[in-house]
C-alpha cells in the first residue's frame, strides 16, 4: 500500500458565515494521481490553497509528510513548500519577466547554482516542453497553451515531489488540452511526482486518475477509481456525472 503524503484530519474552513470545508478527512498517496472534482465554488481551490499553506484552516490538521502545516511558521512552511510544484489556472507567470527569466526564477532564488548551470537546465526543460525559440518572449506574447507549458516548466525546475494542477486545461482548446495531458503523463513518468489535479474536465481527467475525491457542499467523498464514481448512488454525483458524461452505468440497478 502506498504511503500517505498529504492527510487532512477534521479540517474546517469558513469564510465569514459560509463553511467551505466541513470536517474534511482525506488522504493523498505517494506517487499516485488524485483528481479533486466537483461543481464550481464547492471548495476545490480552497483545498489546494490549504495544502500549499496559502490559507490556514479554522480547525483540524493538515499533514504533509507527517508534519502539521496548519500552524507552522512561514520559515518552516517554506521548506515544505519547496517540495511542491504548482501549475496555476491562469499559469501565474510573472508578466514583467521573459519566459527564460520565469523558468529560471526558482533556481536563481532557491539554489546556489551558477548562471551557466541555470541556463543549461532552463534551456533543457524548455526544449523538453517544446518552447525552444520562445525564451525571450513575455507571457503576454504567448498563447494560453504555451503559457501553461511555461508554467509547467517553472513548476518542474526544482524537481518537486508533489505537483498540484489547478484546472490545467481551463480555457484551452481540445488540441491544447490533450497536449497538456500528454506533457503531464510524460513529466510524471520522468520525475515520478505525486500529482493532485483540481479539475472539472470530466471525463477526460478521469483517465489520468488513480483516485477521485468528490467535493460537494463542504463534504468530501473519496473513490478508489474513476469507475467507482461512475457507479456511485449518491444523487448529486449521479446528476453531475450524468450531466458531464452522459447516461451512467449503475450496474445491477440498470440491469
Amino acid at each position, binding site marked *: 500500500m502506498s504511503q500517505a503524503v498529504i492527510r487532512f484530519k477534521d479540517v474546517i474552513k469558513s469564510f465569514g458565515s459560509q463553511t467551505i470545508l466541513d470536517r474534511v478527512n482525506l488522504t493523498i498517496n505517494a506517487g499516485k494521481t488524485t483528481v479533486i472534482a466537483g461543481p464550481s465554488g464547492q471548495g476545490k481551490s480552497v483545498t489546494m*490553497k490549504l495544502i*500549499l499553506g*496559502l490559507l490556514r484552516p479554522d480547525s483540524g490538521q493538515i499533514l504533509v509528510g507527517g508534519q502539521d502545516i496548519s500552524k507552522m511558521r512561514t520559515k518552516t512552511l*517554506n*521548506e515544505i*513548500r*519547496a517540495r*511542491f510544484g*504548482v501549475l*496555476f*489556472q*491562469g499559469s*501565474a*507567470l*510573472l*508578466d514583467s519577466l521573459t519566459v527564460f527569466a520565469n523558468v529560471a*526564477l*526558482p533556481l536563481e*532564488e*532557491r539554489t546556489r547554482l551558477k548562471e551557466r548551470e541555470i541556463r543549461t537546465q532552463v534551456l533543457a526543460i524548455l526544449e523538453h516542453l517544446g518552447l525552444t525559440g520562445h525564451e525571450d518572449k513575455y507571457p503576454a506574447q504567448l498563447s494560453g497553451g504555451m503559457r501553461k507549458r511555461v508554467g509547467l516548466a*517553472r513548476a518542474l525546475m*526544482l524537481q518537486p515531489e508533489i505537483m498540484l494542477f489547478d484546472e490545467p486545461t481551463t480555457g484551452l482548446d481540445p488540441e491544447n488540452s490533450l497536449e497538456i495531458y500528454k506533457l503531464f503523463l510524460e513529466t510524471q513518468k520522468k520525475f515520478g511526482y505525486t500529482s493532485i489535479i483540481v479539475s472539472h474536465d470530466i471525463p477526460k481527467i478521469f483517465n489520468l486518475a488513480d483516485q477521485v475525491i468528490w467535493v460537494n457542499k463542504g463534504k468530501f467523498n473519496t473513490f478508489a477509481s474513476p469507475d467507482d464514481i461512475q457507479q456511485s448512488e449518491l444523487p448529486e454525483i449521479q446528476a453531475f456525472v450524468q450531466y458531464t458524461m452522459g447516461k451512467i452505468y449503475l450496474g445491477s440497478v440498470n440491469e
Partner: protein
Amino acid sequence: MIRYLEKIGSNTIWLLEDLGRMGSFLVLGLGGVVKRPFRLSAMIRQVRLIGANSFWVIFFVAGFTGMVLGLQGYYTLRKFGSEGALGSAVSLSLLRELGPVLTALMVTGRAGSAMCAEIGIMRNTEQLDALECMAIDPFRYLISPKFLATLISVPILTIFFNVVGMFGGYLAGCGLLGVNPGAYWSGMEQSVVNQDINMGIIKSFVFALLIVWVCTGRGYFVHVIRGAGFGAEGVSKVTTQAVVLSSVAILVWDYLITAILL
C-alpha cells in the same frame, strides 16, 4: 437601531483588522530590506522607475512653483518695501514645506499609483501566490526593493525640487521683476539654517515611507479590501484609494512634523 449598531461594530472590526494587516505589512516590508540575499539590481531598477523617471515632472513642477513663489512673494513683500527678502521667502517656503510636500505628492501620483496597480494586478493574477508557492518571500523579492528605492529617491528628488525651485524664484524675481540678484542670494544665505534643511529632509523620509507603505500595501491587500470589488475594477478602485490616502497622510504628517520640529 440594532442593525445600525451592527454596522458600526462590523466597520470598526474591519478597520482594526485593516490596521493590523497594514501594520504587519510595514514591519515585513522594512524587514525585507535587510534580508539576504539583497536584490540590488531590482532596487536600482526601482530607483530608476520611481526616482530617475520622475526627473522631468519634478523639474517642471519645481520650476513653476519657484516662479509662482517669486511672483507672489515679490508683490507681497513690495507692499512692505522688503523685495530684498524675496530670496529668504522663496528658499524657506521651499525647504520647509513646498519642496517635500509637492515632491511627495508628485511621486504619489506618478510612481505610487503605478506600484499599487502593479502589485494589485499581481495579486489578482495569482503571481504573488506563485512566489509564495515557490518559497520565495514576496516581501524580499518584490516589496522591499520598492521600500528602499522610495526611501532613497524621494529625499534626492526633494533636494532637486528645492534647487530648481530656487532658480525658478530667481528667474521670476530677478529676471522678470528686477529684484537685485545679490540681495536674492545673500538673503537666502543669511536666513536658511541647518534646521530648515533638516526639517525638509526628515519630512521627505517620512513621506517616502508613507507613499510606499500605503501604495504597495493597498495593492497587496486588494483581494480583502472591503468594497473594492474584483478584477480590473478592484485594482482601479484600490489605486485611487491609495493615492487619496497617501496624499491625505502626507498633509497630516506634514502638519505633525512641523508642529514637533518648529
